[in-house]
Protein backbone atom coordinates (compact mmCIF):
# COMPACT_ATOMS: atom_id res chain seq x y z
CA UNK A 1 0.00 0.00 0.00
CA UNK A 2 2.63 2.41 1.11
CA UNK A 3 4.71 1.82 -2.00
CA UNK A 4 1.70 2.31 -4.25
CA UNK A 5 0.86 5.66 -2.71
CA UNK A 6 4.40 6.85 -3.21
CA UNK A 7 4.36 5.84 -6.83
CA UNK A 8 1.15 7.65 -7.59
CA UNK A 9 1.92 10.93 -5.85
CA UNK A 10 4.24 13.42 -7.52
CA UNK A 11 7.41 14.04 -5.49
CA UNK A 12 7.41 16.80 -2.89
CA UNK A 13 9.73 18.89 -5.06
CA UNK A 14 6.95 19.04 -7.67
CA UNK A 15 4.01 19.50 -5.29
CA UNK A 16 5.69 21.98 -2.95
CA UNK A 17 5.75 24.94 -5.34
CA UNK A 18 2.08 24.55 -6.26
CA UNK A 19 1.10 24.31 -2.60
CA UNK A 20 3.15 27.43 -1.80
CA UNK A 21 1.49 29.33 -4.66
CA UNK A 22 -1.99 28.25 -3.56
CA UNK A 23 -1.42 29.07 0.11
CA UNK A 24 -0.05 32.51 -0.78
CA UNK A 25 -2.99 33.20 -3.10
CA UNK A 26 -5.56 32.19 -0.47
CA UNK A 27 -3.80 34.33 2.12
CA UNK A 28 -3.79 37.41 -0.11
CA UNK A 29 -7.42 36.85 -1.16
CA UNK A 30 -8.29 36.92 2.52
CA UNK A 31 -6.14 40.00 3.20
CA UNK A 32 -7.00 42.22 0.24
CA UNK A 33 -10.25 42.70 -1.59
CA UNK A 34 -8.27 43.74 -4.68
CA UNK A 35 -6.31 40.50 -5.01
CA UNK A 36 -8.78 37.94 -6.32
CA UNK A 37 -9.72 39.25 -9.74
CA UNK A 38 -8.94 38.30 -13.31
CA UNK A 39 -7.52 41.76 -13.91
CA UNK A 40 -5.10 41.43 -11.01
CA UNK A 41 -3.97 37.96 -12.11
CA UNK A 42 -3.43 39.28 -15.62
CA UNK A 43 -1.40 42.12 -14.09
CA UNK A 44 0.81 39.67 -12.17
CA UNK A 45 1.40 37.68 -15.35
CA UNK A 46 2.50 40.75 -17.29
CA UNK A 47 4.73 41.85 -14.42
CA UNK A 48 6.59 38.55 -14.47
CA UNK A 49 6.77 38.04 -18.22
CA UNK A 50 10.30 39.35 -18.72
CA UNK A 51 11.88 37.35 -15.90
CA UNK A 52 9.56 34.50 -16.84
CA UNK A 53 10.99 34.17 -20.34
CA UNK A 54 14.56 34.63 -19.08
CA UNK A 55 13.89 31.83 -16.59
CA UNK A 56 13.10 29.43 -19.45
CA UNK A 57 16.64 29.80 -20.76
CA UNK A 58 17.99 29.61 -17.23
CA UNK A 59 16.08 26.36 -16.60
CA UNK A 60 17.54 24.72 -19.71
CA UNK A 61 21.05 25.63 -18.61
CA UNK A 62 20.53 24.58 -14.99
CA UNK A 63 19.14 21.23 -16.19
CA UNK A 64 22.57 20.58 -17.72
CA UNK A 65 24.06 21.33 -14.27
CA UNK A 66 25.20 24.74 -15.51
CA UNK A 67 24.24 28.27 -14.46
CA UNK A 68 23.90 31.53 -16.35
CA UNK A 69 24.79 34.79 -14.63
CA UNK A 70 24.85 36.78 -17.87
CA UNK A 71 21.15 36.44 -18.78
CA UNK A 72 19.91 39.78 -17.41
CA UNK A 73 22.72 41.77 -18.98
CA UNK A 74 22.24 39.95 -22.28
CA UNK A 75 18.59 40.92 -22.14
CA UNK A 76 19.53 44.57 -21.50
CA UNK A 77 22.04 44.51 -24.36
CA UNK A 78 19.45 42.98 -26.69
CA UNK A 79 16.90 45.65 -25.80
CA UNK A 80 19.41 48.45 -26.36
CA UNK A 81 20.54 47.00 -29.70
CA UNK A 82 16.99 46.68 -31.01
CA UNK A 83 15.81 50.10 -29.85
CA UNK A 84 18.93 51.95 -30.88
CA UNK A 85 19.13 50.27 -34.28
CA UNK A 86 15.52 51.25 -34.89
CA UNK A 87 15.77 54.85 -33.64
CA UNK A 88 19.34 56.04 -34.32
CA UNK A 89 20.04 53.99 -37.44
CA UNK A 90 16.44 54.22 -38.65
CA UNK A 91 16.49 50.49 -39.35
CA UNK A 92 13.29 48.62 -40.17
CA UNK A 93 11.94 47.72 -36.70
CA UNK A 94 11.48 44.03 -37.54
CA UNK A 95 15.09 43.84 -38.68
CA UNK A 96 16.21 45.78 -35.59
CA UNK A 97 14.42 43.30 -33.31
CA UNK A 98 16.12 40.47 -35.17
CA UNK A 99 19.52 42.14 -34.65
CA UNK A 100 18.83 42.51 -30.92
CA UNK A 101 17.97 38.84 -30.65
CA UNK A 102 20.98 37.91 -32.73
CA UNK A 103 23.22 39.81 -30.30
CA UNK A 104 21.86 37.64 -27.49
CA UNK A 105 22.30 34.43 -29.49
CA UNK A 106 25.90 35.44 -30.26
CA UNK A 107 26.75 35.86 -26.58
CA UNK A 108 24.93 32.58 -25.95
CA UNK A 109 27.23 31.00 -28.54
CA UNK A 110 30.25 32.52 -26.81
CA UNK A 111 29.05 31.12 -23.44
CA UNK A 112 28.42 27.70 -24.96
CA UNK A 113 31.69 27.56 -26.86
CA UNK A 114 33.73 28.47 -23.78
CA UNK A 115 31.88 25.89 -21.68
CA UNK A 116 31.99 23.00 -24.14
CA UNK A 117 35.17 23.59 -26.14
CA UNK A 118 37.48 25.33 -23.67
CA UNK A 119 35.86 23.39 -20.78
CA UNK A 120 35.56 26.42 -18.51
CA UNK A 121 33.03 26.30 -15.64
CA UNK A 122 29.72 27.96 -16.63
CA UNK A 123 29.74 30.10 -13.48
CA UNK A 124 33.01 31.78 -14.48
CA UNK A 125 32.21 32.03 -18.18
CA UNK A 126 28.88 33.73 -17.60
CA UNK A 127 30.35 35.93 -14.86
CA UNK A 128 32.71 37.20 -17.52
CA UNK A 129 30.14 37.64 -20.27
CA UNK A 130 27.79 39.32 -17.77
CA UNK A 131 30.37 42.07 -17.25
CA UNK A 132 31.16 42.28 -20.94
CA UNK A 133 27.49 42.57 -21.89
CA UNK A 134 26.95 45.22 -19.20
CA UNK A 135 29.90 47.32 -20.35
CA UNK A 136 28.97 47.07 -24.01
CA UNK A 137 25.41 48.09 -23.15
CA UNK A 138 26.58 51.16 -21.22
CA UNK A 139 29.10 52.17 -23.86
CA UNK A 140 26.76 51.75 -26.78
CA UNK A 141 23.82 53.54 -25.11
CA UNK A 142 26.01 56.17 -23.35
CA UNK A 143 24.07 55.01 -20.27
CA UNK A 144 21.04 56.85 -21.68
CA UNK A 145 17.52 55.46 -21.87
CA UNK A 146 16.34 55.03 -25.48
CA UNK A 147 12.96 56.71 -26.02
CA UNK A 148 10.66 57.36 -29.00
CA UNK A 149 10.83 53.77 -30.15
CA UNK A 150 8.67 52.59 -33.08
CA UNK A 151 5.07 51.81 -32.20
CA UNK A 152 5.27 48.18 -33.31
CA UNK A 153 8.01 47.37 -30.81
CA UNK A 154 5.39 47.86 -28.09
CA UNK A 155 3.05 45.30 -29.65
CA UNK A 156 3.53 42.72 -26.90
CA UNK A 157 2.58 45.36 -24.33
CA UNK A 158 -0.80 45.87 -26.02
CA UNK A 159 -3.86 44.18 -24.61
CA UNK A 160 -6.95 42.31 -25.69
CA UNK A 161 -10.00 41.59 -23.56
CA UNK A 162 -11.38 38.36 -22.14
CA UNK A 163 -14.63 39.49 -20.55
CA UNK A 164 -13.69 42.17 -18.02
CA UNK A 165 -10.02 41.24 -18.02
CA UNK A 166 -7.43 42.81 -20.28
CA UNK A 167 -4.50 40.57 -21.17
CA UNK A 168 -1.25 41.61 -22.84
CA UNK A 169 -0.02 39.74 -25.90
CA UNK A 170 3.30 39.38 -24.10
CA UNK A 171 1.64 37.21 -21.44
CA UNK A 172 0.29 34.92 -24.16
CA UNK A 173 3.74 34.71 -25.76
CA UNK A 174 5.32 33.81 -22.43
CA UNK A 175 2.79 31.05 -21.76
CA UNK A 176 3.19 29.75 -25.32
CA UNK A 177 6.97 29.58 -24.90
CA UNK A 178 6.53 27.62 -21.68
CA UNK A 179 4.20 25.23 -23.51
CA UNK A 180 6.65 24.74 -26.36
CA UNK A 181 9.59 24.18 -24.03
CA UNK A 182 7.54 21.68 -22.03
CA UNK A 183 6.84 19.69 -25.21
CA UNK A 184 10.48 20.00 -26.27
CA UNK A 185 11.78 18.62 -22.98
CA UNK A 186 9.17 15.88 -22.79
CA UNK A 187 8.74 14.66 -26.33
CA UNK A 188 11.93 15.24 -28.28
CA UNK A 189 15.17 13.30 -28.21
CA UNK A 190 17.41 16.36 -27.61
CA UNK A 191 15.01 17.40 -24.85
CA UNK A 192 15.43 14.07 -23.08
CA UNK A 193 19.17 14.20 -23.66
CA UNK A 194 19.41 17.42 -21.65
CA UNK A 195 18.31 15.48 -18.56
CA UNK A 196 20.81 12.72 -19.33
CA UNK A 197 23.64 15.23 -19.67
CA UNK A 198 22.65 16.93 -16.42
CA UNK A 199 22.58 13.62 -14.55
CA UNK A 200 25.90 12.33 -15.77
CA UNK A 201 27.65 13.95 -18.73
CA UNK A 202 30.22 11.19 -19.05
CA UNK A 203 27.59 8.44 -19.14
CA UNK A 204 25.57 10.48 -21.63
CA UNK A 205 28.59 10.84 -23.89
CA UNK A 206 29.33 7.12 -23.72
CA UNK A 207 25.78 6.25 -24.77
CA UNK A 208 26.42 8.17 -27.96
CA UNK A 209 24.75 11.50 -27.11
CA UNK A 210 26.54 14.43 -28.76
CA UNK A 211 26.88 16.25 -25.45
CA UNK A 212 29.04 19.10 -26.75
CA UNK A 213 26.71 19.90 -29.61
CA UNK A 214 23.62 19.77 -27.44
CA UNK A 215 25.19 21.97 -24.75
CA UNK A 216 26.26 24.56 -27.33
CA UNK A 217 22.74 24.48 -28.72
CA UNK A 218 21.24 24.98 -25.24
CA UNK A 219 23.34 28.08 -24.56
CA UNK A 220 22.37 29.56 -27.94
CA UNK A 221 18.72 28.67 -27.41
CA UNK A 222 18.86 30.34 -24.00
CA UNK A 223 20.32 33.42 -25.74
CA UNK A 224 17.34 33.41 -28.07
CA UNK A 225 14.97 33.35 -25.08
CA UNK A 226 16.84 36.31 -23.55
CA UNK A 227 16.40 38.10 -26.89
CA UNK A 228 12.65 37.49 -26.73
CA UNK A 229 12.71 38.75 -23.13
CA UNK A 230 14.47 41.88 -24.39
CA UNK A 231 11.63 42.52 -26.81
CA UNK A 232 9.08 41.92 -24.03
CA UNK A 233 10.94 44.34 -21.77
CA UNK A 234 10.92 47.02 -24.48
CA UNK A 235 7.21 46.42 -25.04
CA UNK A 236 6.39 46.59 -21.34
CA UNK A 237 8.49 49.64 -20.48
CA UNK A 238 8.02 51.47 -23.76
CA UNK A 239 11.75 52.33 -23.73
CA UNK A 240 15.16 50.70 -24.10
CA UNK A 241 16.60 50.64 -20.58
CA UNK A 242 20.38 50.27 -20.23
CA UNK A 243 20.05 49.84 -16.44
CA UNK A 244 17.57 46.99 -16.86
CA UNK A 245 18.11 43.33 -16.07
CA UNK A 246 20.64 43.92 -13.32
CA UNK A 247 19.05 41.47 -10.88
CA UNK A 248 17.32 39.28 -13.45
CA UNK A 249 20.06 36.64 -13.26
CA UNK A 250 19.43 36.04 -9.56
CA UNK A 251 15.66 36.49 -10.00
CA UNK A 252 15.58 33.83 -12.70
CA UNK A 253 17.70 31.42 -10.64
CA UNK A 254 15.31 32.05 -7.73
CA UNK A 255 12.35 31.15 -9.95
CA UNK A 256 14.05 27.98 -11.21
CA UNK A 257 14.93 26.86 -7.69
CA UNK A 258 11.49 27.72 -6.29
CA UNK A 259 10.05 25.65 -9.12
CA UNK A 260 11.82 22.57 -7.82
CA UNK A 261 14.54 22.22 -10.44
CA UNK A 262 17.76 20.87 -8.97
CA UNK A 263 20.83 23.10 -9.12
CA UNK A 264 22.85 19.89 -9.50
CA UNK A 265 21.24 19.29 -12.88
CA UNK A 266 19.22 16.50 -14.42
CA UNK A 267 16.03 16.94 -12.40
CA UNK A 268 13.26 19.47 -12.68
CA UNK A 269 10.53 20.77 -14.89
CA UNK A 270 9.83 23.85 -16.93
CA UNK A 271 6.30 24.15 -15.55
CA UNK A 272 7.82 24.26 -12.08
CA UNK A 273 9.78 27.31 -13.18
CA UNK A 274 6.56 29.00 -14.28
CA UNK A 275 5.11 28.33 -10.82
CA UNK A 276 8.32 29.68 -9.26
CA UNK A 277 8.08 32.88 -11.30
CA UNK A 278 4.44 33.26 -10.27
CA UNK A 279 5.23 32.76 -6.57
CA UNK A 280 7.58 35.74 -6.64
CA UNK A 281 5.08 37.83 -8.63
CA UNK A 282 2.17 36.94 -6.33
CA UNK A 283 4.11 37.90 -3.22
CA UNK A 284 5.22 41.24 -4.64
CA UNK A 285 1.71 42.10 -5.82
CA UNK A 286 -0.10 40.78 -2.75
CA UNK A 287 2.14 42.49 -0.21
CA UNK A 288 1.80 45.81 -2.04
CA UNK A 289 -1.99 45.45 -2.07
CA UNK A 290 -1.87 44.80 1.67
CA UNK A 291 0.30 47.85 2.21
CA UNK A 292 3.31 45.87 3.45
CA UNK A 293 6.74 47.28 2.50
CA UNK A 294 8.30 45.37 -0.38
CA UNK A 295 11.36 44.44 1.67
CA UNK A 296 9.19 41.68 3.21
CA UNK A 297 8.84 40.20 -0.26
CA UNK A 298 12.60 39.81 -0.31
CA UNK A 299 12.48 38.19 3.13
CA UNK A 300 9.78 35.70 2.13
CA UNK A 301 11.57 34.88 -1.13
CA UNK A 302 14.77 34.14 0.78
CA UNK A 303 12.99 31.74 3.13
CA UNK A 304 11.22 29.98 0.26
CA UNK A 305 14.45 29.55 -1.71
CA UNK A 306 16.14 27.82 1.22
CA UNK A 307 13.07 25.62 1.78
CA UNK A 308 13.05 24.68 -1.90
CA UNK A 309 16.72 23.73 -2.01
CA UNK A 310 16.45 21.85 1.29
CA UNK A 311 13.50 19.87 -0.08
CA UNK A 312 15.49 19.08 -3.19
CA UNK A 313 18.47 17.93 -1.18
CA UNK A 314 16.42 15.74 1.16
CA UNK A 315 14.36 14.06 -1.57
CA UNK A 316 17.53 13.55 -3.57
CA UNK A 317 19.17 11.70 -0.69
CA UNK A 318 16.13 9.48 -0.19
CA UNK A 319 15.81 8.79 -3.89
Amino acid at each position, binding site marked *: MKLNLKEHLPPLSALGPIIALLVASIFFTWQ*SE*HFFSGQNFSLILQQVMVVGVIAIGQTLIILTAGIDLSCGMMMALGSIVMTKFATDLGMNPYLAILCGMLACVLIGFLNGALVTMVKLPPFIVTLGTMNIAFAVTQLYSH*AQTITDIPEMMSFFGNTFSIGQTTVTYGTVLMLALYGLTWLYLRDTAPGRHIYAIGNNPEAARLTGIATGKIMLGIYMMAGLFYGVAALLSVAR*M*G*VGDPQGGQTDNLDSITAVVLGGTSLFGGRGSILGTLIGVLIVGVF*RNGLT*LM*GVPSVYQVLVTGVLVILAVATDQLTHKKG
Partner: protein
Amino acid sequence: MNLQHSISLAVLTCVAGIACAAEQPVIGLITKTETNPFFVKMKEGAQLRATALGAKLLTAAGKSDGDNAGQVTAIENMVSAGAKTILITPSDAKAIIPAIKKARDKGVMVIALDSPTAPQTATDGLFATDNYQAGILIGQYAKASFAGKPVKIAMLDLFPGHPVGITRHNGFLSGFGASGISAATTDLLKTADVVCMADTYGDQGKGQTAMENCLQKNPEINLVYTINEPAAAGAYKALKAAGKEKTVMIVSVDGGCAGVRDVKAGVIAATSQQYPMRMADLAVEAGVTYAKTGKKVAGYTDTGVTLISDKVVAGVESKDTAFGLGACWGK
Protein backbone atom coordinates in the same frame (compact mmCIF):
# COMPACT_ATOMS: atom_id res chain seq x y z
CA MET B 1 -17.23 37.72 -7.47
CA ASN B 2 -20.85 38.22 -6.42
CA LEU B 3 -22.13 40.95 -4.14
CA GLN B 4 -22.58 38.78 -1.08
CA HIS B 5 -19.09 37.46 -1.48
CA SER B 6 -17.65 40.96 -1.79
CA ILE B 7 -19.45 42.20 1.28
CA SER B 8 -18.39 39.27 3.42
CA LEU B 9 -14.82 39.72 2.21
CA ALA B 10 -14.93 43.43 2.97
CA VAL B 11 -16.30 42.74 6.45
CA LEU B 12 -13.62 40.13 6.95
CA THR B 13 -10.85 42.51 6.05
CA CYS B 14 -12.28 45.16 8.38
CA VAL B 15 -12.49 42.63 11.19
CA ALA B 16 -8.93 41.55 10.48
CA GLY B 17 -7.88 45.07 11.33
CA ILE B 18 -7.03 46.06 7.79
CA ALA B 19 -8.58 49.42 7.14
CA CYS B 20 -11.90 49.56 5.33
CA ALA B 21 -10.66 51.08 2.12
CA ALA B 22 -13.96 52.42 0.86
CA GLU B 23 -13.99 55.84 2.49
CA GLN B 24 -10.27 56.12 3.18
CA PRO B 25 -8.03 57.83 0.61
CA VAL B 26 -5.23 55.51 -0.50
CA ILE B 27 -1.86 57.08 -1.28
CA GLY B 28 1.12 55.23 -2.70
CA LEU B 29 4.76 56.15 -2.09
CA ILE B 30 7.43 54.61 -4.32
CA THR B 31 11.04 55.30 -3.42
CA LYS B 32 14.23 54.35 -5.23
CA THR B 33 15.32 51.92 -2.52
CA GLU B 34 14.08 50.73 0.87
CA THR B 35 17.33 51.30 2.69
CA ASN B 36 18.70 54.76 1.87
CA PRO B 37 18.15 56.85 5.04
CA PHE B 38 16.93 59.74 2.89
CA PHE B 39 14.02 57.61 1.66
CA VAL B 40 13.47 56.05 5.08
CA LYS B 41 12.95 59.57 6.44
CA MET B 42 10.71 60.43 3.51
CA LYS B 43 8.58 57.36 4.23
CA GLU B 44 8.43 58.27 7.90
CA GLY B 45 7.18 61.75 7.05
CA ALA B 46 4.58 60.35 4.68
CA GLN B 47 3.36 57.83 7.24
CA LEU B 48 3.03 60.44 9.99
CA ARG B 49 1.05 62.77 7.80
CA ALA B 50 -1.10 59.98 6.33
CA THR B 51 -2.03 58.74 9.81
CA ALA B 52 -2.84 62.28 10.92
CA LEU B 53 -5.11 62.84 7.92
CA GLY B 54 -6.75 59.41 8.09
CA ALA B 55 -5.29 58.18 4.80
CA LYS B 56 -3.86 54.75 4.04
CA LEU B 57 -0.26 54.74 2.85
CA LEU B 58 1.13 52.02 0.58
CA THR B 59 4.87 51.88 0.10
CA ALA B 60 7.16 50.14 -2.34
CA ALA B 61 10.65 50.59 -3.72
CA GLY B 62 12.96 49.45 -6.45
CA LYS B 63 15.54 46.83 -5.56
CA SER B 64 18.42 49.16 -6.25
CA ASP B 65 18.99 52.68 -7.50
CA GLY B 66 18.19 52.55 -11.21
CA ASP B 67 15.68 49.66 -10.97
CA ASN B 68 13.02 51.05 -13.31
CA ALA B 69 11.18 47.76 -13.81
CA GLY B 70 10.59 47.44 -10.07
CA GLN B 71 9.07 50.93 -9.93
CA VAL B 72 6.81 50.22 -12.92
CA THR B 73 5.52 47.12 -11.14
CA ALA B 74 4.95 49.12 -7.97
CA ILE B 75 2.89 51.72 -9.84
CA GLU B 76 0.69 49.02 -11.38
CA ASN B 77 0.15 47.27 -8.06
CA MET B 78 -0.77 50.53 -6.34
CA VAL B 79 -3.26 51.49 -9.03
CA SER B 80 -4.67 48.00 -8.62
CA ALA B 81 -4.88 48.54 -4.85
CA GLY B 82 -7.03 51.61 -5.43
CA ALA B 83 -4.48 54.39 -4.89
CA LYS B 84 -5.75 57.71 -6.20
CA THR B 85 -2.44 59.47 -5.69
CA ILE B 86 1.04 58.06 -6.28
CA LEU B 87 4.19 59.77 -5.04
CA ILE B 88 7.37 58.61 -6.73
CA THR B 89 11.09 59.33 -6.62
CA PRO B 90 11.90 58.26 -10.19
CA SER B 91 14.95 56.03 -10.55
CA ASP B 92 15.08 56.73 -14.25
CA ALA B 93 13.69 60.09 -15.30
CA LYS B 94 12.71 58.94 -18.79
CA ALA B 95 12.04 55.23 -18.57
CA ILE B 96 9.33 55.59 -15.92
CA ILE B 97 7.19 57.92 -18.04
CA PRO B 98 5.05 55.37 -19.99
CA ALA B 99 4.02 53.72 -16.71
CA ILE B 100 3.17 57.09 -15.15
CA LYS B 101 1.11 57.98 -18.19
CA LYS B 102 -0.92 54.77 -17.89
CA ALA B 103 -1.68 55.53 -14.24
CA ARG B 104 -2.63 59.15 -14.97
CA ASP B 105 -4.92 58.00 -17.79
CA LYS B 106 -6.85 56.11 -15.10
CA GLY B 107 -7.36 59.30 -13.10
CA VAL B 108 -4.49 58.82 -10.68
CA MET B 109 -2.59 61.95 -9.65
CA VAL B 110 1.17 61.37 -9.84
CA ILE B 111 3.63 63.59 -7.98
CA ALA B 112 7.39 63.28 -8.38
CA LEU B 113 9.37 63.67 -5.16
CA ASP B 114 13.03 64.63 -4.83
CA SER B 115 13.90 64.46 -8.52
CA PRO B 116 11.93 65.29 -11.67
CA THR B 117 10.92 63.14 -14.58
CA ALA B 118 12.20 64.23 -17.99
CA PRO B 119 10.20 66.15 -19.11
CA GLN B 120 8.92 67.38 -15.77
CA THR B 121 5.39 67.76 -17.21
CA ALA B 122 4.98 63.96 -17.27
CA THR B 123 3.81 64.18 -13.65
CA ASP B 124 1.10 66.39 -12.15
CA GLY B 125 3.57 68.01 -9.83
CA LEU B 126 7.12 67.99 -8.46
CA PHE B 127 8.00 68.44 -4.78
CA ALA B 128 11.75 68.69 -4.55
CA THR B 129 14.84 70.47 -3.43
CA ASP B 130 16.07 73.10 -5.83
CA ASN B 131 19.30 71.22 -6.57
CA TYR B 132 20.69 74.09 -8.58
CA GLN B 133 20.24 76.39 -5.60
CA ALA B 134 21.81 73.73 -3.34
CA GLY B 135 24.88 73.82 -5.56
CA ILE B 136 24.97 77.60 -5.68
CA LEU B 137 24.99 77.86 -1.87
CA ILE B 138 28.12 75.72 -1.41
CA GLY B 139 29.73 77.39 -4.45
CA GLN B 140 29.22 80.80 -2.89
CA TYR B 141 30.48 79.55 0.45
CA ALA B 142 33.66 78.18 -1.11
CA LYS B 143 34.21 81.35 -3.15
CA ALA B 144 33.89 83.57 -0.05
CA SER B 145 36.16 81.26 2.00
CA PHE B 146 38.95 81.29 -0.57
CA ALA B 147 38.62 85.06 -0.97
CA GLY B 148 40.57 85.25 -4.20
CA LYS B 149 43.32 82.76 -3.28
CA PRO B 150 44.30 80.43 -6.15
CA VAL B 151 42.11 77.36 -6.29
CA LYS B 152 42.33 73.90 -7.82
CA ILE B 153 38.99 72.09 -7.72
CA ALA B 154 38.12 68.39 -7.77
CA MET B 155 34.49 67.59 -8.54
CA LEU B 156 33.19 64.25 -7.34
CA ASP B 157 29.94 63.73 -9.23
CA LEU B 158 27.05 61.25 -9.17
CA PHE B 159 26.94 59.12 -12.35
CA PRO B 160 26.70 59.87 -16.05
CA GLY B 161 23.54 61.55 -17.25
CA HIS B 162 21.73 61.95 -13.93
CA PRO B 163 19.89 65.31 -13.84
CA VAL B 164 20.34 65.84 -10.08
CA GLY B 165 24.08 65.29 -10.39
CA ILE B 166 24.29 67.72 -13.28
CA THR B 167 22.29 70.55 -11.69
CA ARG B 168 24.19 70.37 -8.38
CA HIS B 169 27.50 70.33 -10.21
CA ASN B 170 26.60 73.28 -12.42
CA GLY B 171 25.01 75.15 -9.50
CA PHE B 172 28.27 74.85 -7.59
CA LEU B 173 30.27 76.27 -10.49
CA SER B 174 27.76 79.08 -10.91
CA GLY B 175 27.92 79.88 -7.19
CA PHE B 176 31.71 79.86 -7.45
CA GLY B 177 31.45 82.61 -10.05
CA ALA B 178 31.40 80.87 -13.41
CA SER B 179 29.28 82.70 -15.94
CA GLY B 180 26.92 81.50 -18.63
CA ILE B 181 25.39 78.68 -16.56
CA SER B 182 21.70 78.24 -15.79
CA ALA B 183 19.58 75.64 -14.02
CA ALA B 184 18.54 74.38 -17.45
CA THR B 185 22.08 73.49 -18.55
CA THR B 186 22.09 69.76 -19.22
CA ASP B 187 25.82 69.06 -19.59
CA LEU B 188 28.39 68.75 -16.81
CA LEU B 189 30.41 71.95 -17.24
CA LYS B 190 34.10 72.40 -16.49
CA THR B 191 35.85 75.67 -15.72
CA ALA B 192 39.56 76.46 -15.77
CA ASP B 193 39.73 75.98 -11.97
CA VAL B 194 38.44 72.40 -12.20
CA VAL B 195 41.40 70.04 -12.48
CA CYS B 196 39.60 66.73 -11.96
CA MET B 197 36.11 65.29 -12.37
CA ALA B 198 35.09 61.75 -11.35
CA ASP B 199 31.93 59.72 -10.68
CA THR B 200 31.19 58.39 -7.19
CA TYR B 201 27.66 56.95 -7.55
CA GLY B 202 27.04 58.71 -4.25
CA ASP B 203 29.00 55.96 -2.56
CA GLN B 204 31.71 56.31 0.10
CA GLY B 205 34.01 53.65 -1.27
CA LYS B 206 33.82 54.96 -4.81
CA GLY B 207 34.19 58.51 -3.49
CA GLN B 208 37.46 57.51 -1.85
CA THR B 209 38.76 55.90 -5.03
CA ALA B 210 37.75 58.95 -7.05
CA MET B 211 39.58 61.30 -4.70
CA GLU B 212 42.70 59.11 -4.69
CA ASN B 213 42.77 59.20 -8.47
CA CYS B 214 42.21 62.96 -8.54
CA LEU B 215 45.09 63.52 -6.10
CA GLN B 216 47.23 61.33 -8.31
CA LYS B 217 46.32 63.53 -11.24
CA ASN B 218 46.88 66.81 -9.43
CA PRO B 219 48.31 66.90 -5.88
CA GLU B 220 47.62 70.64 -5.61
CA ILE B 221 43.84 70.23 -5.31
CA ASN B 222 42.62 72.41 -2.43
CA LEU B 223 38.83 72.45 -2.91
CA VAL B 224 36.59 69.39 -3.32
CA TYR B 225 32.95 69.46 -4.39
CA THR B 226 31.06 66.23 -3.59
CA ILE B 227 27.62 65.17 -4.79
CA ASN B 228 26.65 64.01 -1.28
CA GLU B 229 28.10 63.37 2.15
CA PRO B 230 28.99 59.68 1.78
CA ALA B 231 31.13 60.69 -1.20
CA ALA B 232 32.57 63.50 0.95
CA ALA B 233 33.44 61.02 3.72
CA GLY B 234 35.26 58.87 1.15
CA ALA B 235 37.12 61.90 -0.21
CA TYR B 236 38.18 62.83 3.33
CA LYS B 237 39.66 59.37 3.89
CA ALA B 238 41.72 59.74 0.74
CA LEU B 239 42.86 63.24 1.74
CA LYS B 240 43.78 62.06 5.23
CA ALA B 241 45.84 59.20 3.82
CA ALA B 242 47.68 61.79 1.74
CA GLY B 243 48.12 64.06 4.77
CA LYS B 244 46.09 66.83 3.15
CA GLU B 245 42.95 66.81 5.29
CA LYS B 246 43.83 70.10 7.02
CA THR B 247 44.56 72.05 3.86
CA VAL B 248 41.81 70.92 1.52
CA MET B 249 38.23 72.15 1.85
CA ILE B 250 35.30 69.79 1.15
CA VAL B 251 31.80 71.05 0.42
CA SER B 252 28.77 68.83 -0.13
CA VAL B 253 25.00 68.53 -0.52
CA ASP B 254 22.36 66.47 1.36
CA GLY B 255 22.20 67.24 5.08
CA GLY B 256 21.88 63.70 6.46
CA CYS B 257 22.72 63.32 10.18
CA ALA B 258 26.05 61.61 9.51
CA GLY B 259 26.87 64.40 7.07
CA VAL B 260 25.97 67.18 9.49
CA ARG B 261 28.11 65.50 12.17
CA ASP B 262 30.93 65.50 9.63
CA VAL B 263 30.42 69.25 9.23
CA LYS B 264 30.54 69.63 13.02
CA ALA B 265 33.76 67.58 13.15
CA GLY B 266 35.34 69.73 10.46
CA VAL B 267 35.50 66.94 7.86
CA ILE B 268 33.13 68.88 5.61
CA ALA B 269 33.26 72.69 5.60
CA ALA B 270 29.67 73.26 4.55
CA THR B 271 26.73 71.28 3.19
CA SER B 272 23.41 72.21 1.61
CA GLN B 273 20.66 70.51 3.57
CA GLN B 274 17.49 69.24 1.92
CA TYR B 275 14.24 68.11 3.54
CA PRO B 276 12.81 64.72 2.50
CA MET B 277 10.22 64.77 5.29
CA ARG B 278 8.79 68.04 4.07
CA MET B 279 8.54 66.65 0.52
CA ALA B 280 6.51 63.67 1.70
CA ASP B 281 4.50 65.74 4.14
CA LEU B 282 3.31 68.25 1.55
CA ALA B 283 2.72 65.58 -1.09
CA VAL B 284 0.56 63.38 1.16
CA GLU B 285 -1.47 66.47 2.04
CA ALA B 286 -1.94 67.17 -1.67
CA GLY B 287 -3.04 63.55 -2.17
CA VAL B 288 -5.70 63.79 0.53
CA THR B 289 -6.92 67.09 -0.90
CA TYR B 290 -7.22 65.45 -4.31
CA ALA B 291 -9.22 62.55 -2.86
CA LYS B 292 -11.60 64.95 -1.11
CA THR B 293 -11.99 67.78 -3.61
CA GLY B 294 -10.61 66.46 -6.90
CA LYS B 295 -8.17 69.37 -7.02
CA LYS B 296 -4.79 68.40 -8.44
CA VAL B 297 -1.45 70.05 -7.79
CA ALA B 298 0.47 71.66 -10.62
CA GLY B 299 4.08 72.45 -11.36
CA TYR B 300 7.06 72.65 -9.04
CA THR B 301 7.00 73.11 -5.27
CA ASP B 302 10.34 74.05 -3.73
CA THR B 303 10.81 72.19 -0.45
CA GLY B 304 13.69 74.38 0.62
CA VAL B 305 17.44 74.11 1.10
CA THR B 306 19.66 75.53 3.87
CA LEU B 307 23.41 75.99 4.03
CA ILE B 308 24.82 74.27 7.13
CA SER B 309 28.24 75.29 8.48
CA ASP B 310 29.84 76.10 11.82
CA LYS B 311 32.27 78.54 10.26
CA VAL B 312 30.40 81.62 9.11
CA VAL B 313 31.85 83.46 6.14
CA ALA B 314 30.96 87.04 5.33
CA GLY B 315 28.25 87.56 2.76
CA VAL B 316 26.90 83.99 2.80
CA GLU B 317 23.92 83.11 4.96
CA SER B 318 24.17 79.83 6.86
CA LYS B 319 22.81 77.95 9.90
CA ASP B 320 24.97 76.07 12.41
CA THR B 321 25.17 72.30 12.88
CA ALA B 322 22.84 72.41 15.92
CA PHE B 323 20.10 73.55 13.53
CA GLY B 324 21.24 70.99 10.97
CA LEU B 325 21.13 68.10 13.44
CA GLY B 326 17.60 69.08 14.43
CA ALA B 327 16.40 68.71 10.84
CA CYS B 328 18.55 65.86 9.54
CA TRP B 329 17.74 62.23 8.73
CA GLY B 330 19.42 58.87 9.24
CA LYS B 331 21.51 57.70 12.16
